[in-house]
């Protein structure tokens, strides 16, 4: 059984982000009695209380604002310090731009293995086992670890947080400030989609290469608008993004965003495993595709076979009428 878990947390504008609470939940379900959360950057010590409420037993922080702009070499040094303090059997990170870089680097420095982008992590008679999607989502693989600690990055929304325990507290400790970095960040550009973010939307309508032209996305956007600007966002397949029809920030899939809305409507998307990796967690999937044999119908609960140019405007009207 994992008795000591280290969670590498992340802050969003100084607040603990949702994924960190999911990681604490996963650590707790592994049976860890000590769950240490490492937090780096402006607001870290202030965010500790939320980590305790989420189930952390100890929180290590450095408020050094140099950590706000993630640089792998600075973070890995701080997390190594946290490893020395927490002696973890398992280290959990998010499959984010932080975890993607830190997990392999830590694995090297601790001479152990890292399992990336896991959907599940469990305790199997004292051994940590991690399950992840492989071959672009065509298969799943379960790994055990030959060496300790086990390093696992977890896909967003794959794990549930614990019920918050209001007013909980625990031990706190410090992490060192940022060391020098060999990397300089010369510029950073945040491309936020206007309005509702993909990951926060309860409905996602996505368009694919079958739209035939960038104008096809107008039809998709109309549908999203009819469903409600406060709950529906627009996504895209990689084929559509690579063609320049829609911004890459809206790409859903293995190498794009992972969404878990109540309703996912795939318009003119074939349902390649790499696309489904980003949306198969949706509660209900609807597919609109002119090819009745399209793979997307293997995943969809409801489907419409037909040309999107007719079907989507008709659906937009039907939704408006039903309101």
């Amino acid at each position, binding site marked *: 059984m994992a008795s000591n878990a280290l969670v590498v947390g992340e802050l969003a504008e100084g607040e603990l982000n949702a994924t960190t609470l999911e990681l604490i939940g996963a650590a707790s379900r592994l049976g860890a009695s000590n769950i240490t959360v490492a937090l780096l950057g402006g607001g870290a010590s202030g965010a500790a209380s939320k980590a305790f409420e989420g189930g952390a037993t100890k929180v290590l922080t450095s408020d050094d604002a140099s950590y706000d702009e993630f640089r792998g070499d600075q973070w890995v040094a701080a997390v190594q310090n946290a490893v020395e303090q927490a002696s973890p059997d398992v280290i959990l990170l998010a499959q984010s731009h932080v975890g993607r870089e830190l997990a392999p680097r830590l694995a*090297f420095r601790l001479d152990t293995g890292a399992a990336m982008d896991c959907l599940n992590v469990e305790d199997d008679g004292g051994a940590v086992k991690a399950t992840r*999607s*492989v071959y672009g989502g065509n*298969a*799943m*693989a*379960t790994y055990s670890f030959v060496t300790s600690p086990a390093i696992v990055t977890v896909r967003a929304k794959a794990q549930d947080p614990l019920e918050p325990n209001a007013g909980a507290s625990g031990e706190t400790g410090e992490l060192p400030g940022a060391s020098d970095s060999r990397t300089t960040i010369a510029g950073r550009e945040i491309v936020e989609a206007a309005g509702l973010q993909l990951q926060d939307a309860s409905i996602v309508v996505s368009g694919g290469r079958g739209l035939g032209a960038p104008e096809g996305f107008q039809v998709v956007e109309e549908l999203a608008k009819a469903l409600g600007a406060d709950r529906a966002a627009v996504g895209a397949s990689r084929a559509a993004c690579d063609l320049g029809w829609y911004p890459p920030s809206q790409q859903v899939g293995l190498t794009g965003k992972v969404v878990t809305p109540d*309703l996912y409507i795939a318009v003119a998307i074939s349902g390649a495993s*790499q696309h489904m990796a980003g949306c198969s967690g949706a509660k209900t999937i609807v597919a609109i595709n002119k090819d009745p044999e399209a793979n997307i119908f293997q995943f969809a609960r409801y489907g419409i076979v037909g040309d999107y140019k007719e*079907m989507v405007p008709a659906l937009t009207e039907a939704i408006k009428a039903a309101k």
Partner: protein
Amino acid sequence: MHFVVCAKQIPDPETPPSAFKIDPQKNEVIPAQGIAPVLSQFDSIAAEAALRLKEAAGDSKITVISMGAESAQAAIKQVLAMGADEGLLLNDPAFTKGDPHTTAKVLTAAVQKLGDVDAVFCGRQAADWDWGQTGLLMAEGLGWPSAIIAKGVALDGQQLSVERVLEDGYETAQAPLPAVVTVSNEFGEPRYPKLQQIMQAARKTVTTWTAADLGLDAAEVGEAGSRLRLEKLFIPEKEGKVELMEGDTATEKAQALVKALQGAKVL
């Protein structure tokens, strides 16, 4: 300048799901009948990145390295046809069934043996096991800075400038050479070799190195040296009970869908 491109040969990721089969006893993917293995897509983009730097820097050389079976020659030849200068196959029975730790160990040893390398280009992840680790592990092993998930690279003297894709935007990271870069599809399409280049590449010789050539012990590579053990490989069950909307017109189908979604309390 001497650039290295790490290129992996994998089962075609565009294999239709119906043709994708695994052997649950051996925990292996069964190669689909009639579908040839391919160069992992991100690796051809990594090659494109190295080629553009070579063209900008002038007087440079690109070595393409693949660890794999004899068949991986095809992946190497493809990058040679794109314009790389030399090919290196790392082939040894001891290298099989490894994990990112052992893969990176072998590739790092090869880069160290080459000796004069200024930058290594990898794909952001290999499209078979989707790890996304090898480039970073090599950077750690070589002690070099790294920039992952690149959509653009430029060289200013000994300073590498990398445009990176983040979840919510982009950043430009700068690091001194030597460095490791992993490249993503946002970089753009790789060039398509001309017939003449393919014929030239076919004639280029590819050097093969074994574990012994790299000074590696069989116990530290492949399955024996791995830090991860694959316990189980399986194909997840799909429910596959789609309800297709009936109707003579688009409006009827659309109305049927709205009704179904309302019935299921999704709308």
